[in-house]
């Protein structure tokens, strides 16, 4: 009785809607990481790319007076960062992890710097002229009870993240180019010897991941709020990396793991308002989920091996027991 009462209170339509919204930047970042991983490129710069997208979107929306244009500029800016990443990685053979670290740190400080120099803002900045991305009601869908209110009435970036998951799935697994991407990721020299342009594939995935991550960032600054604060992504890029690993770098898997982290986040927020659990503990929840996810992914192979080994021992003991019994009969 009591439990049901609590769960009704805690999980409301609003919480699920908020989970869907919070999942959006994670899904987009995770798709970016996943497509790079499929091509054998370790893109740990998702966090930086996302932050850059958030910054570019709000600045462009302010300067151009149109939020949609702001989003487009953010996507282009993310692509540019991806292209820069690709150029340095492919041309100068810089180690990917070091490059990503540098990029993340540089973008974090650069946004703070420009905020201060251009807008004179410390820490966070907003302008009343900036419009939030409008919510879009989908005809017909919004008529359906429960599903309608859940799935309809989100902004364009939310829908794009879902569409991108399915589109990337089709590209990766049902087109020539997607197959070439996976071939490059799994055995680069196999791809090279059949004449696939490996550099082209890597440049493409890095630009695309920049676009996706930056779009996720734009959602934060002009979709969810109309505000930019320093380090606005707050680790969402890293959560996206986790979601991608947890979803085994599969676009559809990533859609679900991203939603899972989004819900964990929304649930944590909700818990803070309806229970007395200390907020610091509750805010920790999504990170615990991420930690558990990473441990599961990491231990997957080992666990499978250990289980197989245990079965083998049991079987072997039975066999030995059987051979011992036989002569007595």
């Amino acid at each position, binding site marked *: 009785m009591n439990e049901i009462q609590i769960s009704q209170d805690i999980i409301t339509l609003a919480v699920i809607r908020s989970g869907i919204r919070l999942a959006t930047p994670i899904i987009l970042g995770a798709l970016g990481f996943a497509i790079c991983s499929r091509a054998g490129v370790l893109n740990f710069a998702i966090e930086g790319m996302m932050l850059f997208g958030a910054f570019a979107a709000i600045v462009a929306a302010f300067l151009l007076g149109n939020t949609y244009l702001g989003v487009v500029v953010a996507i282009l800016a993310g692509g540019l960062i991806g292209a820069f990443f690709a150029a340095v990685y492919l041309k100068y053979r810089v180690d990917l992890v070091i490059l990503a670290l540098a990029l993340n740190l540089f973008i974090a400080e650069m946004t703070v710097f420009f905020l201060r120099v251009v807008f004179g803002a410390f820490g966070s900045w907003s302008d009343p002229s900036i419009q939030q991305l409008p919510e879009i009601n989908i005809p017909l869908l919004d008529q359906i009870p429960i599903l309608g209110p859940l799935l309809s009435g989100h902004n364009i970036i939310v829908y794009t993240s879902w569409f991108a998951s399915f589109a990337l799935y089709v590209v990766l697994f049902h087109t*020539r180019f997607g197959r070439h991407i996976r*071939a490059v990721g799994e055995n680069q020299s196999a791809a090279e010897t059949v004449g696939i342009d490996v550099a082209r594939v890597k440049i493409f995935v890095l630009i695309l991941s920049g676009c996706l991550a930056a779009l996720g960032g734009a959602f934060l600054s002009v979709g969810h709020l109309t505000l930019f604060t320093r380090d606005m992504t707050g680790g969402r890029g890293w959560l996206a990396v986790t979601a991608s690993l947890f979803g085994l770098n599969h676009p559809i898997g990533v859609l679900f793991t991203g939603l899972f982290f989004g819900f964990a986040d929304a649930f944590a927020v909700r818990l803070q308002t309806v229970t007395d659990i200390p907020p610091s503990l509750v805010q920790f929840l999504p990170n615990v989920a991420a930690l558990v996810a990473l441990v599961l992914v990491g231990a997957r192979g080992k666990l499978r091996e250990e289980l197989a080994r245990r079965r083998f021992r049991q079987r*072997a003991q039975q066999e*030995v027991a059987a051979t011992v019994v036989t002569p007595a009969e």
Partner: protein
Amino acid sequence: MPAVEMQGITKYFASSQVLANDAVDLSVGQGEVHALVGENGAGKTTLMNILFGLTRPDRGTIRLNGTPVQIPHPNEAIRLGIGMVHQHFKLVPSFTVAQNILLGIEPSRYGLLDQRDENAAVKKLADEFGLPVDPAAVVGELSVGLQQRVEILKALQREARILILDEPTAVLTPQEARELFTVIRDLAKRGQTVIFITHKLLEVIEVADQVSVMRAGRMIGSKPVRETNLKEMARMMVGREVLLTVDKKPVEPGEIVLEVEHLLVAGVGGHTAISDLSFNVRAGEIVGIAGVSGNGQTELVDAITGLQPVDGGTIRLLRNEITNQPVGDRREQGMAHIPEDRLRTGLNLETNLDENVIVSRYREPEFQHYGLQDRAHIQKLAEWVVTQFSVASARPGEDIATLSGGNLQKVVLGRELSGSPKLIIANQPTRGLDVGSIEFVHRTLVDARDRGAAVLLISVELDEILALSDRILVLFRGRIAGEFQDEQATKEQLGILMAGGVIEEEAS
């Protein structure tokens, strides 16, 4: 008119200061099986890489069917009808057979792929050449022999008329090798030209029409196979007489050094790798374990050396139980291990000779000075290895990455034998080595045995097992399928047991 004519091919690698090809001429006839033999580092692979467009020659001309061609890139080679099957396969493990064969040339409709079209295309190709494969099978789950077949089909799909095979049998079991030879002969009959690189001279006699021998970047000579013999080819290859058999004293086995009882080991994925296996090795004898690769050799060696946990049974070294002891303890008690993969397990190519030589013995007080490494002593040990094992071009304190396969194996041998071990586990000790180095490794193992060491030799090369072993055990599916004293064993008998057959007792 020859299908391939290479003239005056010269290639100098400035980075390693090696003249890999020195005015090399090669002529290969249409529909011919042409063996290109030579020791490691003789320049065979460089010559073929030039023909396939992977390396650009400094000088020289290439003609295909009389027409001069430039081959700056593998794409051009493929366009000209040249296909190459590399020693390390260029396959994508998670892709199916069809996806691998059609990689880069996939048929697609509106950019979308159709699995059924692809499978049908590959099926047709496989039928046409009589090379059966399952187009929908995942390549990573296939045996090495079948993976190689996929590589050959990949070249044929691209309409290769000239097929280059780089050491195709190095990774194959004897049965798979025999199948490959049949395939090669069939292809030649259809008018395909096959060039295959090898240093196993028996294979040349078995399958080739013509043989070209290279040594130290030069072409020594080219002859029809029927006009030459093993001894002559070996002499051309090495530049001196080669002992094809190993002289050894009669065996005088001493006490039991290694004793394995009812050993049980799980393989990857929990299948049975070693099942209720018992045997022993005595001091002063070489026990050979014959068997097709994949019958539990790796797991057996890993269990004895402590690299893999044992699931049942006991292992004793000089009457001490070592079943669950760590590797270091086993080594301290006199175990030495020559691993099957010298590049990954045997050596660290990133570091220098000294560190590679000391890695198994750094704990010994002799090499320590108040808890720090004693450089002078370590260097002395490295010098000893270089001189005792005549490791050409290696010097103490210098990197080993540029050494040839034979010299690398000598470094491993030097390290493992330096502490006069009581038990030597030698797993595929001559894999991928040239004739000269094989001779050296064999000599070294026999010397160690004559000094009283117990040697456990695991090899998929039957000739090696027969040449060295005092006692032979045949491993089949994790069990011992038969045991022989050296003089009783014949190749035929071993071959039957290795394939899982039973030797029928002759009614005498």
